């Protein structure tokens, strides 16, 4: 069930606010984005990578399966993750150091360059992290189970004051 379907219903987001300004970085709620799980990919996106294709992002964090963010892919089996996974984007100079308060992954350029994708724990919640820099500015797209989104969002806000130190 993706946005912009025939539905006239009112969509509600899992988090309280659409954005939060944490000083050195911004949080954006992008949960409304359509997301799909497929078991085939004709773009050749390799494990651990994420790539843009015609407005969609295709990423691979587990062997033999892909997550597509954008239009419904054309595949034999497609599971709609639009409402399963919430999406939070962190953008800004301080995005990485903020994330380092809640994520044990090495987010440095050598281990997590732009275009890297991984599933790991963020604030104790299994989360897909896609490094998706925007115009040279560090940016991370986080996908996590929708019911956890509010918790994760609040943990990020709680960690923010510490990033300065």
């Amino acid at each position, binding site marked *: 069930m993706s946005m912009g379907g025939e539905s006239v219903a009112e969509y509600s987001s899992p988090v309280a606010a659409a954005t939060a300004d944490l000083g050195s970085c911004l949080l954006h709620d992008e949960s409304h984005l359509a997301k799909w799980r497929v078991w085939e990919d004709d773009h050749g996106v390799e*494990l651990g990578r994420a790539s843009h294709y015609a407005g969609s992002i295709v990423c691979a*964090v*587990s062997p033999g399966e892909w997550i597509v963010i954008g239009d419904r892919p054309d595949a034999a089996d497609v599971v709609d993750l639009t409402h399963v996974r919430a999406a939070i984007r962190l953008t800004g100079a301080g995005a990485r150091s903020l994330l380092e308060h809640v994520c044990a992954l090495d987010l440095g350029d050598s*281990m997590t360059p732009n275009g890297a994708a991984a599933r*790991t724990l963020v604030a104790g919640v*299994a989360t897909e992290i896609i490094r998706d820099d925007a115009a040279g500015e560090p940016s991370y797209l986080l996908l996590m189970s929708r019911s956890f989104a509010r918790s994760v969002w609040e943990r990020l806000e709680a960690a923010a004051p510490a990033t300065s130190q």
Partner: protein
Amino acid sequence: MLVIVCPHCGPRNSNEFTFLGERSTRPAVAATTPAAWRHYLYFKNNAAGEAGERWFHVSGCRRFLDVERDTLTNEIRSVRDVGEAAG
């Protein structure tokens, strides 16, 4: 916090994984006896040293892994996907 080098994800902290204990072989259900079945259920080698274990990368790629670990030093010798464990 151990480092487990997942064959699909690379080095990760051990708290991303679930430990499922030493690997054991399931007896053929048709032919099994209570003694044989309960050895499968309850009795492990509890090796002090090289142990053949099963771990699950639950917060990562969600693949089940065969891990060879030294239980005295926690040194990990190898990690393979159950799919190509034979390899």
